[in-house]
């Protein structure tokens, strides 16, 4: 028969107290030094205008004074939604440039995510839509790009070509090199490979759908417009590797707009 020595009640209570206090310490330490949304911030400028909506077309309905605290919620384009800490909190929108001088309650500075040209280099994904002329035919395409290094991108393109006697769908994978990515007007050079699936119109006699590989060489200029938005003008020469004796060489001009995420 086993006899278990009963533990005195006070020692159990002591252990529980130790556990609870250590849990609190762990919880406090586990929170790192980044500011989360819904964090209280303090106005460091003489005043801060708050608008009813995320745009300059909306009226200013409230003004926050220096040393007043408010809470940041979310961001839409260049505007941040905030709410005051009054008894009846007011909710409004503040432009991100007006928040250059806000700080935390403890006195640290807060940087609200970069949106300018510099931020392009830290954004990896990009999406563009382009329209142009491929050997006399209209061509549109969407491109998904991934920034591998400051100068190098990998692009995946899907597009459609609308010609006089046939339509085509093309898929491409290319590598783009931008020697000066921080310039406002930045040139680039591109090399790629792909496939073009041509569908001749039914009115033509003995015309069959065909699928050909193609290689592309090209370059262009990229213009930084605003926020993460750029425009680019492109010239590419494609070599379509046909099943006939000679390969077909086609030139393409295009204009595109891209967004970086």
């Amino acid at each position: 028969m086993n006899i278990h020595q009963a533990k005195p009640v006070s020692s159990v209570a002591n252990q529980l107290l130790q556990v609870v206090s250590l849990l609190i310490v762990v919880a406090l330490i586990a929170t790192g030094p980044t500011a989360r949304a819904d964090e209280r911030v303090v106005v460091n400028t003489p005043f801060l205008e708050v608008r009813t909506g995320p745009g300059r077309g909306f009226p200013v309905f409230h003004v926050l004074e220096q040393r007043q605290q408010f809470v940041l919620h979310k961001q839409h384009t260049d505007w941040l939604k905030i709410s005051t800490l009054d008894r009846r909190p007011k909710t409004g929108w503040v432009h991100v440039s007006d928040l250059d001088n806000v700080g935390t309650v403890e006195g640290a500075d807060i940087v609200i995510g970069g949106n300018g040209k510099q931020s392009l280099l830290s954004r990896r994904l990009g999406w563009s839509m382009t329209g142009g002329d491929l050997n006399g035919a209209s061509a549109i395409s969407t491109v998904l790009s991934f920034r591998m290094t400051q100068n190098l991108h990998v692009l995946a393109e899907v597009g459609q070509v609308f010609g006089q006697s046939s339509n085509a769908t093309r898929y491409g994978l290319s590598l783009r090199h931008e020697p000066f990515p921080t310039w406002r007007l930045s040139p680039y050079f591109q090399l790629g490979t792909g496939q073009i699936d041509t569908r001749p119109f039914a009115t033509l006699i003995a015309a069959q759908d065909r699928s050909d590989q193609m290689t592309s060489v090209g370059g262009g200029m990229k213009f930084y417009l605003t926020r993460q938005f750029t425009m680019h003008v492109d010239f590419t020469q494609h070599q379509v590797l046909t099943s006939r004796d000679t390969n077909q060489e086609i030139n393409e001009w295009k204009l595109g707009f891209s967004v970086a995420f």
Partner: protein
Amino acid sequence: MEARFQRGILAHYPRITLAMVPATLRFLSAALIAANAYAVEPDDDPLSIENSVNSPNPPRAVKVADIDTENFEFGLDGGLMSIEDFETNSTVSAYLNYHVTEDFFLQARGGTSTAGESSFERLSGAAQLLDEDQRELAFYDLSIGWNLFPGESFLLDRWAVRSSFFVIGGVGATDFAGNEAFTVNAGMGYRMIANDFMTFSVQIRDRVFETELTGTPKNTHNLEFTAGLSFFF
């Protein structure tokens, strides 16, 4: 008998008691302190140059705000499309907007409609220009829109609605009459922002593409009037 057997098995496993928890937590908190030590800004390091006796102002810590951005808008549209030569029919479409700045946005849109009978088909009685499949019109386009007059609009005495008038234009493709044609579209609309995440909009757009149904190629103008609801996310 059974109880003795069970105790025998359990005796091989370490007994987890309440006494072990403080030790584990002490280890955990020490580990976390060590981990967070690396998150301290270099300016707080007493040996760095910035913290030398001669620097006038103590450097302030900098935090990067992690704020949720809501620039994408997904919407559904419905209304009428007047397909040139083939009556006016209902249309539905879906679109995805990305707001680049408060002034302009990018849109990817796709929709469908079904053409009716042309006057020629109705009057001639016999000849059908298009079969059932060819009457289905499907389109997609990529456009850029510009918010022209953002502001507040007022409904009666009590309500102020955030709104903006926009113009939009782009390129795309239309699949109709067994042929996929390059399409240019242009239009305008009015958007009313109900609350932070929901928007109601009406718009009118002209889709221009080339068809050769009558033998000679011609540019057709297909007007679209739609109303829709969209959500920000």
